[in-house]
């Protein structure tokens, strides 16, 4: 197999918006023409996991690798046996949605040999409105702990500061500043800033000096309009 497709690893603190970003990235890559696989490596969160979009994604032709059957709803620290195969694949773009914090990133250590044997990028999603990553020092601390737990290097930073419906320009700009500074300190690239499409009206896009990614909300609460199916954890 030709090593043509990317392996993209999405990490961050708990609640940084990793899953929302990973799911959107899968759609973006798929729409760009790359055959895409999304791997749910979250063994930390019991709700709001990328496996929740499996049915939606199968109709788009995006493969989701996650525990199957009754285990879909389990809170067990278990992974699909298909993960090991997926991280080696170079004929598809493979996105790893990793659980939050170093605890979630520890799972990567299991696959780090296979991952380091090929090219990969590892993104740290930064939301400065999560108390665990509220300033540069805490972001760098989180980054160091995730690198140690996973045995891998963070190569890019993605700003994702938001406060749900209270998101405004200041909140987003604050995230860009922290992600950019952290990228400098980690010898990584600051790549993009995310804003949820529902919040675009509250944000002055011209004030954001970075590539803007408009995210569509997939991880909906059951009472939010457009929630697709009866919520199951």
């Amino acid at each position, binding site marked *: 197999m030709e090593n043509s497709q990317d392996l993209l690893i999405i990490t961050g603190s708990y*609640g940084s918006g990793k899953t929302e970003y990973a799911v959107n990235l899968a759609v973006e890559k798929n729409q760009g023409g790359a055959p895409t696989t999304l791997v749910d490596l979250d063994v930390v*969160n*019991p*709700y*709001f996991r990328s496996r929740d979009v499996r049915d939606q994604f199968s109709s788009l032709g995006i493969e989701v690798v996650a525990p199957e059957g009754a285990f879909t*709803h*389990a*809170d067990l620290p278990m992974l699909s046996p298909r993960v090991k195969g997926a991280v080696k694949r170079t004929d598809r773009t493979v996105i790893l949605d990793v659980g939050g914090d170093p605890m979630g990133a520890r799972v990567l250590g299991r696959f780090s040999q296979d991952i380091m044997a090929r090219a990969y990028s590892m993104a740290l999603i930064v*939301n400065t*409105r*999560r*108390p665990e990553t*509220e300033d540069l020092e805490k972001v760098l601390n989180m980054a160091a702990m995730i690198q140690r737990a996973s045995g891998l290097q963070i190569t890019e930073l993605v700003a994702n500061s*938001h*406060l*749900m*419906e*209270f998101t405004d320009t200041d909140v987003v700009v604050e995230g860009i500043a922290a992600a950019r500074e952290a990228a400098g300190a980690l010898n990584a690239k600051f790549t993009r800033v995310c804003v949820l499409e529902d919040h675009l009206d509250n944000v002055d896009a011209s004030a954001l000096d970075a590539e803007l990614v408009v995210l569509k909300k997939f991880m909906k*609460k*059951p*009472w*939010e*309009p*457009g*929630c*697709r*199916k*009866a*919520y*199951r*954890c």
Partner: protein
Amino acid sequence: MGKKVLMKGNEAVAEAAILAGCRHYFAYPITPQSELIEYMAKKMPLVDGTFLQAESEVAAINMVLGAAACGVRVMTSSSSPGISLKQEGISYIAASRLPAVIVNVTRGGPGLGNIAPMQCDYFQATRGGGHGDYYTPVLSPSTVQEFADMAPMAFEIAEKYLTPVMILGDGMLGQMMEPVEFPDAYPPQKDPSEWALGARRTPDDRHIINSLYIDPYVLQEKTETLFKVYEEIKKNETRFETYNMDSGAKYLIVAHGTAARVAKSAVDALKEEGVELALIRPITLWPYPYDAVAEAAKGKEKVITIELSMGQMVEDVKLAVCGECPVEFIGKAGGVVFTPEEIVSLIREKIS
């Protein structure tokens, strides 16, 4: 107020408890509540507090009893099956007239059930839960902010009436993230010399923490005293919220917690179609706002109770409405939550 941050309900209630001066926390992990115990494990040492993962839920609740007897703000938390295990201790705490806070982030039941959000512990929470003649004030949050705000509220009620207080969240409230703010100051702890061990106010003021009264007349008197306190709690602490009450609605919806969020979305959706619904959300489940529900039901053609269970609070709604109009029920078992479209069509069926 501090700066707005994004937190899970489990984290927010833990942070608020610490800010409110809780320095003692004993628990045993269980999904979907585990972030709460993890947060306490991380933060308690930073404030010179005591975090202890007990060997079981039974041990944890008895540690709570011990700490409460010593006059400190103390909390425990668990999810449904773990709360069942704590019931003996909660009964002892209630009988011993000690203030403590218990958080239940409920999951699907009965049995081990599953880790999905459900409201099927309503009976257990509002009818005492353990053995004996007692009640526990029960607070039901419906947002992450309210979950956080209920921590200091629970300590205040607990200390004012010397009773255990339960915050009854559910897996959705524990797991979901919402913006939350914490006030700069919290109400201080009430002087514990009223109840705590070793805090004699006068030479004769002996504090003996006990729930064993072999003499039936003494137990009778103690229990009657407890129920006088419950009357005070009913009078002073009954809380509820209403929504869209002045719309001339012919129908009343009653829902609490997560189900109230779903219900509110249905009220808004049906309003756009020209159908008005009034909503009442009990905030205290015990004491239940019977009078407020009765008042809200006056002149309505129908009352509809929405719960994430096979129907528990609906019995309190029937007691409140007392035959004034039909009371219908919409519910789901298994931890499955209604989608916005589904709840709207289920309500439409009931009112057509």
